[in-house]
């Protein structure tokens, strides 16, 4: 089948902080470059979900005059709290005893989605062509094996794979360099990492699932600029995770929970841990009387330095969390993603002008503050595999006394899909019923995400073996997809006493958790038809 093709100097896949920063920096370096940026969401920002306490370091470098450009960065962090939660009690940890990387007094509470919308405006003003609603579904290669570009998804295919009247074939977008900026577990990035063995000699990548809700709360409970984190309850000592609560403008709080996807108990439901967390007296008293206005979830990368793949290959670069530049102890990935985009742009410019090899990306990365940050952060996450208490003690020594410069590097031993123990060896967890005031079921939560996928299109969650969920995973792990999916996409239904695995793909909020956690790696997330997925507002 022949497709139309369009040629650009640089093709960027993904309109998040890393992709947009790459685009802006490229145009600053050379206004004559033709740059095209594809985004799978219906508009820039609609698939962005993040805390977010924002460190402006990379933005200061990219757009030093951002304060004069009506940016959505307004709420300065004024106060910080860290709580250890027991079942009903809480213990406040003095902030001066927190590692420096967890201190936020120079940072801002922002909506990353709004920041991306604003960055997209800056990029468009510079002449970048941005196309929302066009997922890149396929990587195109030259005969020599180098990356040539991408093809966008065909539109108008029915669920059986036939062309509908509205069929519109995908387009080939060819770039001298293609930049993959899809975010955590990008489905093309995953293929590139495998094909070019970019993760050779690296530790397995580590992931978490992050939930976020936005609440409008009562005036008396709201303290604009307050940043609060918690560790402990409801998670046990062996499960990695914690919460955030950021008091933003307009009486909103951004409330969220992150759980490491290396959890072992298949009965654990990350969604229900988050819902239960909100019932803790220290949290409930803040949101009580308020109203939940948004919900969403997204996987995030936690592997850091040890798991960071090589970020260049012939014809292409990986940026941001498509590679995995998040700084875990800092709980921040936006400024690092942006910095990786800036470095990528400098690399591409020199590659195009002076014919330098794309491998200079690595040298530039190593000489940047981004490398230093990730290096110093590297031992925190693996130390928590010893449990919360030992993790905290080690992190204190590593981060406060040695500032991340201990002369060894701890390893990540397992990929997240390998960590589940058989269901019959692990305790069942009895989650409380939803009260529809503080806690809610998945259906009403997904409703808030504005998620939709056009009817009658192929299921975009592919099973390598369609019988495996019932024949193996159900028996051995009680089919954990029913619980790790934050949108209720996966269900095991009984029909005439026969179990059936159901995929409600129209509910998918594109978090990628199933692609990561499925114990046999049996689920592959591919791009649905353009514009599908959530329509997040200020997430």
């Amino acid at each position: 089948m022949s497709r139309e093709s369009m040629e650009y100097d640089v093709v960027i896949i993904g309109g998040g902080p890393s992709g947009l920063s790459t685009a802006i920096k490229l145009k600053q370096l050379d206004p004559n470059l033709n740059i095209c940026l594809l985004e799978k969401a219906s508009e820039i920002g609609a698939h962005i979900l993040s805390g977010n306490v924002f460190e402006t370091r990379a933005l200061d470098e990219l757009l030093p005059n951002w304060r004069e450009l009506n940016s959505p960065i307004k709420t300065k962090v004024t106060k910080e709290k860290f709580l250890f939660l027991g079942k009903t009690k809480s213990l406040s940890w003095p902030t001066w005893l927190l590692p420096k990387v967890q201190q936020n007094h120079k940072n801002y509470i922002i909506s990353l989605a709004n920041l991306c919308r604003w960055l997209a405006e800056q990029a468009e003003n510079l002449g970048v062509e941005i196309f929302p609603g066009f997922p890149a579904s396929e990587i195109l290669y030259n005969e020599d094996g180098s990356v040539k570009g991408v093809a966008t998804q065909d539109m108008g295919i029915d669920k059986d794979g036939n062309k509908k009247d509205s069929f519109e074939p995908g387009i080939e977008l060819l770039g001298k360099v293609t930049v993959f900026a899809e975010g955590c577990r990008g489905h093309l990035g995953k293929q590139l990492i495998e094909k070019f063995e970019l993760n050779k000699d690296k530790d397995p990548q580590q992931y978490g699932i992050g939930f976020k809700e936005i609440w409008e709360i009562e005036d008396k409970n709201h303290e604009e600029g307050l940043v609060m984190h918690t560790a402990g309850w409801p998670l046990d000592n062996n499960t990695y995770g914690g919460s955030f609560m950021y008091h933003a403008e307009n009486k909103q709080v951004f409330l969220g929970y992150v759980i490491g996807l290396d959890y072992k108990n298949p009965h654990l439901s990350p969604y229900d841990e988050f819902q239960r967390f909100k019932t803790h007296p220290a949290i409930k008293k803040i949101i009580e009387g308020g109203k939940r206005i948004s919900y969403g979830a997204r996987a995030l990368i936690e592997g850091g330095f040890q798991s960071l793949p090589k970020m260049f290959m012939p014809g292409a670069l990986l940026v941001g969390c498509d590679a995995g530049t998040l700084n875990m102890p800092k709980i921040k990935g936006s400024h690092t993603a942006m910095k990786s985009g800036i470095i990528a742009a400098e690399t591409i410019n020199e590659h195009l002008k002076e014919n330098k090899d794309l491998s200079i990306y690595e040298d530039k990365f190593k000489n940047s503050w981004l490398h230093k940050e990730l290096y110093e952060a590297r031992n925190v996450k693996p130390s928590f595999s010893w449990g919360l208490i030992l993790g905290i003690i080690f992190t204190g020594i590593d981060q406060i006394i040695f500032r991340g410069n201990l002369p060894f590097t701890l390893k990540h031993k397992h990929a997240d899909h390998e960590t589940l123990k058989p269901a019959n060896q692990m305790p069942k967890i009895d989650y409380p019923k939803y009260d529809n005031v503080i806690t809610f079921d998945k259906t009403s939560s997904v409703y808030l995400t504005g998620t939709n996928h056009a009817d009658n299109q192929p299921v975009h969650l592919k099973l390598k073996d369609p019988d495996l969920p019932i024949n193996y995973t159900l028996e051995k792990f009680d089919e954990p997809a029913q619980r790790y999916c934050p949108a209720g996409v996966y269900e095991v239904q009984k029909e005439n006493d026969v179990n059936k695995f159901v995929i409600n793909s129209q509910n998918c909020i594109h978090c990628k958790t199933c692609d990561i956690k499925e114990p046999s790696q049996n689920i592959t997330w591919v791009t649905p038809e353009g514009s599908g997925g959530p329509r997040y507002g200020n997430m």
Partner: protein
Amino acid sequence: MKILVAVKRVIDYNVQIRVKEDGTGVVTDNVKMSTNPPDDNAIEEAVKIKEAGKATEVVAVTVGEEKAQETVRKALAVGADRGIHVKVDGILEPLAVSKILQKIVDKEKPDLVFMGKQAIDDDCNQTGQMLSALLNWPQATFASKIDVKDNKLEVTREIDEGLETIEINVPAIVTCDLRLNEPRYASLPNIMKAKKKPIEEIAASDLDVDVSPRLEQLKVEEPPKRKAGIKVANVAELVQKLKNEAKVI
């Protein structure tokens, strides 16, 4: 034959609408906006008629704030030839919109005016009808099928009793139902080309139309929450409850 198609920018149909706390309206900040869905059908039909060689030009027009131009741009990407954006800020009632459209019709002299049967934000379902009255043109509302026959249109309408087929003379107003067609996707090359198509910008104030609202909006509030349902043990209990508690039978 020239077709003028009116399109409106509304909150995307997938977005859960939230009422502002002070009751003055609904939240639109950072909310995904789209073309009013039946307006997409109107554009699609006009483009199809042009592709069938029965029309020479399709002009998309919108009335609204600066960003409403995106809706015209989208119409251009799926086949409209050029666009008109009448700029006006603030709340616009159907009467004001139809008066503005009347001026545009005077200027453009189209043979047909298409638009969606109603907008999904205010659900008024009035603009087409009012424009028909102002122009004294025939109208066909809720069209689910349109046949162009020389100087006449045969239009099938979706009505409460089923389908009604009428014949009207051109020039005419047609308001389009969602069943009329399946709107095409805007392809990437066509989106690029649409960026180069002309959009004429007109300030509403230059049209000498009174756009001030005729209605006073007192308050916007959410509909009451539905109460949770109950499970009954058997049919007898259901009948008893319907009779004595719900009092519906």
